[in-house]
């Protein structure tokens, strides 16, 4: 396979890099995908996989099958365990042992893994994440009317909470920080979402630290630092994602890349939840484990591999999620991220009975972010407007 491209990871980043390579004229038979799970599926559909009990085929990516038909070599059920950048080989673990694969170019698309905080009891049976189809299969098997505690009130935790509630389970969401969706929404917008969750019968606790997940072999409940206890048959840990960057670095941090996804090693690229990505507004490299970021770099890496020039400004975050009856929109930088990047000026919030909206500005008064939450069937014209405005205002950023 010398001269071929080896892609480590059979998730969205890996599969779309293969597709883009073929689109760029790269021969499919010179592409190898090392995939622990196959076919690839979309984590974005896990909530529906749970609540609507749709078959696995509906969340699987049709593209996986097509790549195999086109002649891409898929080493399904294998895992990359080592990398020799001098010899240009990847060590892989298979069912029967280990072997080596040579590469001309290597794309590391190993994704992320759920972060599990060091809380006693997180290893008990019945404690799962909301990251893979096996998590959903376990949650689907719970008897109706079970009690579940979801730890973490980001988008993953809240969509899981709503899906479980739809199945008739009792759900408590526990968030350590002062509000739900702390990285995504301004306070009044988060409050709006919280009110609707409460109306759905979901108990939401903020500023609450979990002291212990209780139980012997199986989880029985969760105890907070203040002593309050919540009985539960299952616990969903939705406390963030960390990069699977171990092939290239040992410190657990995301892989650093340039604007085309190149790492510091010749012929080695990295993208998706294992790597950094560039923010369109500031030009800074940040860690954003989001599907469309992987898709963006899957295009750039393919272009770079076939020798096309890549001049990329980065990604404008464009987040949408339906959390029960509430639609959540976030375009550009949220207040928290803008502050972290040192570009936060003002935040303006307005709202009505069924909606709230926030606009985030930099110190020069330029729009850098837009957020909206709404319930009921309302148009969201502001999102397109904000997206176009941000492109226009920041597209001419000096390199």
């Amino acid at each position, binding site marked *: 396979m010398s001269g071929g491209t080896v892609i480590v990871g059979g998730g*969205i980043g890996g599969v*779309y890099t293969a*597709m*883009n390579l073929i*689109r760029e004229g790269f021969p499919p038979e010179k592409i190898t995908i090392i995939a622990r799970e196959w076919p690839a599926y*979309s984590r*974005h*559909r896990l*909530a*529906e*996989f749970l609540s*609507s009990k*749709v078959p696995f085929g*509906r*969340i699987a*990516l*049709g*593209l996986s099958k*097509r790549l195999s038909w086109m002649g891409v070599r898929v080493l399904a059920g294998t895992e990359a365990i080592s990398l020799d950048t001098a010899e240009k080989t990847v060590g892989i673990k298979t069912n029967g042992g280990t072997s080596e694969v040579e590469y001309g170019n290597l794309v590391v698309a190993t994704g992320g893994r759920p972060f599990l905080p060091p809380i006693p009891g997180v290893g008990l049976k019945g404690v799962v994440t909301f990251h893979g189809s096996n998590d959903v299969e376990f949650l689907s098997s719970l008897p109706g009317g079970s009690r579940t505690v979801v730890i973490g009130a980001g988008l993953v935790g809240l969509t899981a909470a709503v899906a479980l509630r739809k199945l008739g389970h009792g759900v408590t969401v526990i968030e350590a920080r002062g509000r739900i969706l702390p990285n995504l929404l301004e306070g009044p917008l988060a409050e709006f979402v919280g009110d609707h969750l409460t109306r759905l019968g979901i108990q939401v606790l903020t500023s609450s630290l979990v002291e212990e997940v209780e139980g012997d072999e199986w989880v029985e409940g969760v105890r907070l630092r203040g002593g309050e206890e919540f009985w539960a048959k299952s616990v969903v840990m939705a406390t963030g994602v960390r990069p699977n960057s171990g092939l290239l670095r040992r410190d657990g941090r995301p892989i650093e890349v340039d604007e085309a996804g190149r790492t510091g090693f010749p012929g080695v690229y990295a993208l998706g939840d294992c790597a950094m990505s560039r923010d369109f507004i500031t030009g800074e490299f940040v860690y954003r484990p*989001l*599907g*469309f*970021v*992987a*898709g*963006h770099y*899957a*295009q750039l890496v393919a272009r770079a591999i076939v020798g096309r020039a890549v001049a990329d400004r980065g*990604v*404008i975050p*464009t*987040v*949408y*999620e*339906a959390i029960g009856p509430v639609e959540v*929109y*976030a*375009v550009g930088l949220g207040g928290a991220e803008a502050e972290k990047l040192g570009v936060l000026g003002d935040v303006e919030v307005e709202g009505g009975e069924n909606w709230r909206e926030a606009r985030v500005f930099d110190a020069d008064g330029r729009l850098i972010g837009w957020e909206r939450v709404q319930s*009921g*069937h*309302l*148009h*969201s*014209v502001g*999102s*397109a*407007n904000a*997206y*176009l405005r941000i492109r226009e205002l920041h597209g001419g950023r000096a390199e």
Partner: protein
Amino acid sequence: MSGKQLLHILPERCTGCMDCVKACPMEEPAIRIPKTPGGWDIVVCRHCSPAPCVDACKFGALWVKEDGTVFLAKELCTSCKACAAVCPFGAVFLGPTGEMVKCDLCNGEPKCVEACKEGALLYGGTPDKGLARERKPVRELLSIRGFV
């Protein structure tokens, strides 16, 4: 019909009969008619040009066909919902199975238009609005509709 046709929406004519929704051949109808305080709204893709959803889609699942239709290839879609985040009309949305839903204009013969007896949905040129003569950027389209 020529290649420069547009779907025109006249919600003031809509009576909420739902004939258009029933006529949509998609598994999950791509047209929705929510009740509003003053009547009915019509939520369906306007096939903007240029389209923010096409720009935001990083998976190559959305593109503009030669006849101007903004087309969603389900096979390429990951349901990342970036398109829904930037759609000005709420017209590309998450279906109950987790797949994105969007109107494809039925290959140039939209069944919803055929079904609408009230004339709330029209497919063709509207020279008086100047929309069909030349495809307008979405910002202009929004401004014509009084949104920006």
